[in-house]
């Protein structure tokens, strides 16, 4: 519970970007369940290394949009490209990270196991069957747990954790993956201010290190503006409002990834 | 199947290593006429055959006739020991050869299937038994159900609704008798009669004497003179030992000799008594031993079309 501030974020500097095509581009996208659209005709892009925050009333369709981008729901209409793959196909394994609002953890498995699920794309068929993860995945998982302030909980069952701790397990699972696109659905709810801030710091550090693009759902408007380049306000079946955040910095194209 | 480890020279009439003889004999056995059969120790018989033939022998008890007959038909077992009914079905279907048959003190390789009653019931003929509660040794058993039903059919006392269906037998029984008690083997039927759950019982003519005649009579037994035979139906073949279709002549010969040798040896006599519970084993062919049984029950539905084939 002690050292949560392992991440030292350097804000607004040298966000390096490799590719020019935006990781997420939607044109006229409709999302919903069973042919009933919840949000219609959405058009937006998320640039390399940039962050888009989604805000909106409870039930307006934020999660539905994220689930569609994550490939869980099929788009009802329109076009959406995620990492150069056009939905409903999924991008290459491991490139997309997702922190679901409902967590999607295996409750009676240990914290470590759940975090390791973020690294399944490292595993070949044989290792998958045996369920054995390589040592470096384990080291990374432990490190990710440390970052979210859960060191010491590796062997606890998720169902024996507090709500905020569980959420941080889902966050660590996404972080350990170092995805190129991260979809974070209300990842800061159920967290106290301090913990939330340290998670945000980690997110920004990770973003700086890897040039990851982020779509985040966040109810706290201040926080949303603070971490994102663009805030999209959803409502009435579509995008109601678009706020470009001044505090954010321009992404700078980088040379190569080390 | 030959013997490949070449370990020879155990006995003098040792056929171990003969290419015509398997390196193991398997008996598939399903004999459940008597409660004593359940815990029966077959090992002495296996040892006997092994010592006589020089071929290791195992005796596997199989509680289903179908499995025993299937094993015999495909050569998974070399010989079987089943009661007359299933043996007849197996012979009829696959043409198994008979190696030896059981015989009683009088040298008869059959027993008499009969209906008997208590002397207080007043039943004198099978005609009187209509609507009376009956006791059968088991469902579709030879002496307990098939033979009496065949008799009733022959006498025109029952008719079958469905000529093509073995279950019509059961239905006919239900129809003719009052409340049939089915199961329990020979003893079960006798006990049901003795305890007045039934007024007529089917089995062997000797059943009352066998179970209630000696000193070890069951407590529910009535005095022997309180049992009366209603009808002696026919001779039913005793248990034969059948040979597999796949068995070679050499094997059949060996087994037959070993079995018949039981008669002439004090140890063998003991095995006959303890294991087979008979006086002696005789030579016979399937045709002689099982054939008449088929004639008797050939007018039963579902069985007839097998005879014609």
């Amino acid at each position, binding site marked *: 519970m002690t050292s949560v501030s392992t991440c030292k974020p350097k804000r607004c500097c040298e966000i390096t970007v490799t590719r020019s095509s935006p990781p997420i581009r939607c044109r006229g996208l409709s999302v919903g369940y069973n*042919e009933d659209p919840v949000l219609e005709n959405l058009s937006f892009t998320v640039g390399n290394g940039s962050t888009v925050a989604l805000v909106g009333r409870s039930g307006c369709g934020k999660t539905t949009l994220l689930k569609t981008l994550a490939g869980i729901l099929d788009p009802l209409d329109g076009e959406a490209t995620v990492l150069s793959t056009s939905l409903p196909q999924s991008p290459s394994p491991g490139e997309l990270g997702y922190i679901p609002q409902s967590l999607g953890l*295996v409750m009676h498995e240990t914290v470590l196991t759940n975090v390791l*699920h973020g690294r399944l794309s490292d595993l070949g068929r044989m290792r998958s069957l045996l369920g054995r993860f390589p040592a470096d995945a384990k080291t990374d998982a432990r490190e990710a747990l440390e970052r979210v302030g859960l060191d010491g909980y590796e062997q606890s069952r998720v169902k024996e954790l507090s709500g905020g701790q569980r959420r941080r397990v889902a966050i660590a699972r996404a972080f350990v993956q170092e995805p190129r696109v991260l979809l974070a659905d209300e990842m800061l709810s159920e967290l106290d201010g301090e913990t939330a801030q340290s998670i945000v710091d980690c997110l920004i550090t990770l973003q700086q290190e890897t040039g990851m693009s982020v779509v985040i759902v966040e109810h706290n408007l201040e926080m949303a503006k603070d971490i994102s380049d663009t805030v999209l306000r959803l409502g009435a079946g579509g995008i109601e409002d678009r706020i470009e955040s001044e505090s954010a910095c321009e992404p700078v194209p980088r040379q190569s990834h080390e | 199947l030959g013997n490949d480890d070449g370990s020879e020279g155990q006995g003098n009439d040792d056929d171990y290593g003969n290419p015509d003889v398997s390196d193991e004999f*398997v008996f*598939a056995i399903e004999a459940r006429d008597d409660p004593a059969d359940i*815990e029966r120790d077959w090992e002495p018989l296996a040892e006997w055959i092994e010592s006589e033939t020089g071929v290791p022998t195992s005796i596997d008890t199989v*509680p*289903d006739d179908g499995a025993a007959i299937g094993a015999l038909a495909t050569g*998974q077992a070399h010989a079987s020991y089943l009661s007359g009914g299933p043996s007849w079905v197996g012979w009829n279907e696959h043409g198994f050869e008979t190696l030896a048959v059981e015989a009683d003190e009088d040298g008869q390789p059959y027993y008499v299937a009969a209906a008997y009653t208590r002397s207080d019931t007043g039943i004198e003929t099978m005609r009187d038994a209509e609507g009376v509660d009956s006791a059968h040794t088991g469902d579709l058993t030879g002496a307990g159900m098939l033979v009496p039903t065949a008799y009733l059919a022959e006498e025109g006392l029952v008719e079958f609704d469905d000529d093509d269906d073995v279950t019509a037998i059961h239905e006919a029984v239900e129809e003719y008798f009052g409340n049939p008690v089915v199961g329990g*083997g020979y003893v079960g039927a006798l006990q049901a009669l003795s305890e007045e759950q039934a007024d007529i019982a089917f089995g062997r003519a000797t059943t009352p004497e066998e179970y209630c005649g000696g000193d070890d009579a069951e407590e529910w037994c009535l005095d022997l003179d309180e049992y009366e035979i209603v009808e002696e139906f026919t001779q039913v073949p005793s248990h034969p030992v059948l040979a597999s279709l796949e068995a070679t002549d050499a094997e059949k010969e060996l087994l037959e000799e070993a079995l018949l040798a039981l008669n002439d040896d004090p140890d063998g006599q003991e095995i006959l008594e303890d294991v087979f519970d008979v006086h002696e084993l005789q030579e016979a062919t399937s045709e002689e031993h099982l054939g008449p049984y088929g004639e008797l029950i050939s007018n039963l539905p579902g069985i007839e079309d097998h005879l014609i084939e």
Partner: protein
Amino acid sequence: MSNVDRTTSAASFRTHLKTFGRPLLFILVFVLAVWSIWILELHQTDFSGGADGLTFLYGAAIPPEMSVLEVGLRGLLETLYIAYVGTLFGVLLSLPVSLVASRNLFPWYLTLPARWFLAMLRVLPSILWAVIFVILIGTGPAAGVFAITLYTIGFIGKLEYEAFEGLDNEPIEAVSSLGATRLQVLRFVVLPQAINSLISQTMFMFEYNVRHAAAIGIVGAGGIGYYIMGYLDFLQYDRVVVLLAIVFLTVLVIDEFSYRLRSFFLGDMSTSISK
């Protein structure tokens, strides 16, 4: 495509049924029950012989004939060996089939054949399996083990795929969206999530195989089922009672073991209301 069509029509059907569906269903079940009772003339059942019957059964079973104790224990051991191997093989082989048979995990052109396959295995009576394996590999315990293995696959495979279909979707969808292959989702999410059902059903199947030892008995006069069935045939209830008591104790042990094993995998299962 047709998948969507089906979902939509099912949805509109459901909207209609939403208010009336449950009561209608219960009425249907009830009417069918009354109808069947009528056809079978159950309402005319005569219970007058009951007291006599009980006396008879009591007399037949009591006092128990303890002499079969030894035979029963020996039989139990043999049965346990055979049931253990048969259940283990059966459960292991059933897993891949039942996963493929789950409609929430695989498309219909895979689930249907898998379900048919399992139904086929289930339909053959266990005694017929035994006959088949005696014919294929001969008399002896192997035939019993294989017979048990095969009907166990059909039996437990069905229970498994229905358990898989009832699982919480969230973890399955979450992990698969991270880029896990289907195999990985099955291995790391579906199986662990279903562990309560899997253990429960496996132990139940083991218990069933021990109890249902009649089929096991087919492989030689070994198993306890052989003795039970044998003595039942001859109405020797005083012996049957002793053998059943042995099975009863075994069942209790297996039950306790099942609970322990599930607690081991799932953690504490007690709730505030179990006090």
